[in-house]
């Protein structure tokens, strides 16, 4: 197989674009897709200060590297969850990567916030992942606002977005359907959220990451139940196989024609949010979920 642009031997085959690329031309293709997404959805500009959540996985590292090379003002944020046999490796990967590429990094330790995940897990009698996700989102948002960032980016790719959208559609979840997309404007108490890799598939991102030498580490969280939305991703892989390009078309169609009616509906029937009386984070309850978890963990500590 030959590269579509320069006819050198291809190293990446892209059925959805019915083509293949050599390493250099694939870099150009990938970077242009990211730029196109940023411009078409007006995610941010060179004036923005962008905070990027770095889990240690390839997608978030790819996200910050491509934005840095494009000349955006980027800073990494790593949340250290204090999970044994997992958090240490994730943090070391992120720190080494940021040092290698000259990227500013903020590390937030959950142990110091009284929210070490194993303690939270010991205190909760429901699955840890939803609480852990809530805690991560809370601190992404808090650091972004406290430190004056104007956009908060995550490494979600097209497959993540499609799987989430599909799951929201199956439940007709008006609230989630009203605010899913590559850009969520800042709204009282919430930073602007952006997903710069939304046009790129998981496969494309993995190929690009490999070719840029982004490290492959596999130290899964011991509490993980495996990849989320796996069955929806399989279903969509079948659909995409039969009609290459269908995933992106479905997603862009939702943004263009599907989302607004859900937003209108949500304005009428959605929960109204007010600042948490303890920390100020927007919540539909009086005290936000993270403050309640914190109190519960502190109570447990007091008993020890």
């Amino acid at each position, binding site marked *: 197989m030959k590269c579509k642009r320069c006819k050198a031997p291809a190293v990446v085959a892209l059925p959805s674009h019915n083509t293949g690329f050599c390493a250099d031309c694939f870099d150009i293709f990938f970077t242009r897709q990211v730029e196109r997404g940023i411009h078409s959805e007006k995610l941010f500009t060179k004036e923005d200060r962008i905070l990027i959540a770095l889990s240690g996985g390839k997608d978030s590292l790819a996200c910050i590297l491509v934005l840095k090379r494009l000349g955006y003002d980027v800073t990494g944020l790593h949340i250290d969850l204090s999970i044994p046999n997992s958090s240490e490796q994730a943090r070391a990967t992120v720190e080494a990567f940021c040092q290698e590429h000259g990227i500013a990094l903020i590390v937030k330790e959950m142990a110091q916030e009284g929210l070490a995940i194993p303690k939270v897990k010991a205190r909760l009698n429901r699955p840890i992942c939803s609480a852990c996700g809530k805690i991560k989102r809370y601190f992404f948002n808090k650091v972004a606002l406290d430190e004056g960032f104007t956009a908060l980016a995550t490494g979600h790719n097209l497959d993540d977005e499609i799987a989430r959208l599909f799951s929201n559609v199956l439940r007709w979840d008006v609230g989630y359907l009203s605010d899913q997309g590559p850009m969520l404007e800042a709204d009282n108490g919430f930073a602007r959220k952006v997903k710069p890799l939304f046009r790129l598939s998981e496969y494309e991102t993995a190929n690009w990451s490999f070719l840029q030498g982004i490290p492959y580490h596999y130290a*899964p969280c011991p509490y993980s139940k495996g*990849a989320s939305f796996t069955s929806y991703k399989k279903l969509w892989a079948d659909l995409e196989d039969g009609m290459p390009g269908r995933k992106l078309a479905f997603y862009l169609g939702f943004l263009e024609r599907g989302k607004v009616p859900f937003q209108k509906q949500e304005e009428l029937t959605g929960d109204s949010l007010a600042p948490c009386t303890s920390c100020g984070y927007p919540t539909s309850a009086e005290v936000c979920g993270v403050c309640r978890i914190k109190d519960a963990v502190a109570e447990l500590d007091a008993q020890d």
Partner: protein
Amino acid sequence: MSEHHAAPAEEPSGERRPYGVTVTLQPSNKTEVLPVRSVLQLLNKLQIRPTTVLVIRDGGLLTPDQRLNHGDEIIVRTVVSSG
């Protein structure tokens, strides 16, 4: 062509070792030896869709049309993110 094409009969032991490509699956790290002659054959044999894995030989990526040779060591790494 590469040294991988050396005929089995020329191997020092003098024995004819059956043709085989050593495949390591990531992240499970399971290894098996398969009698396949191209990346596409390999993926078909494993029943893996080409757009769900990276196929790596000697630190480089292979497209499905690439030929494989006796003695090749191949990594098949799934791309689905765990997050």
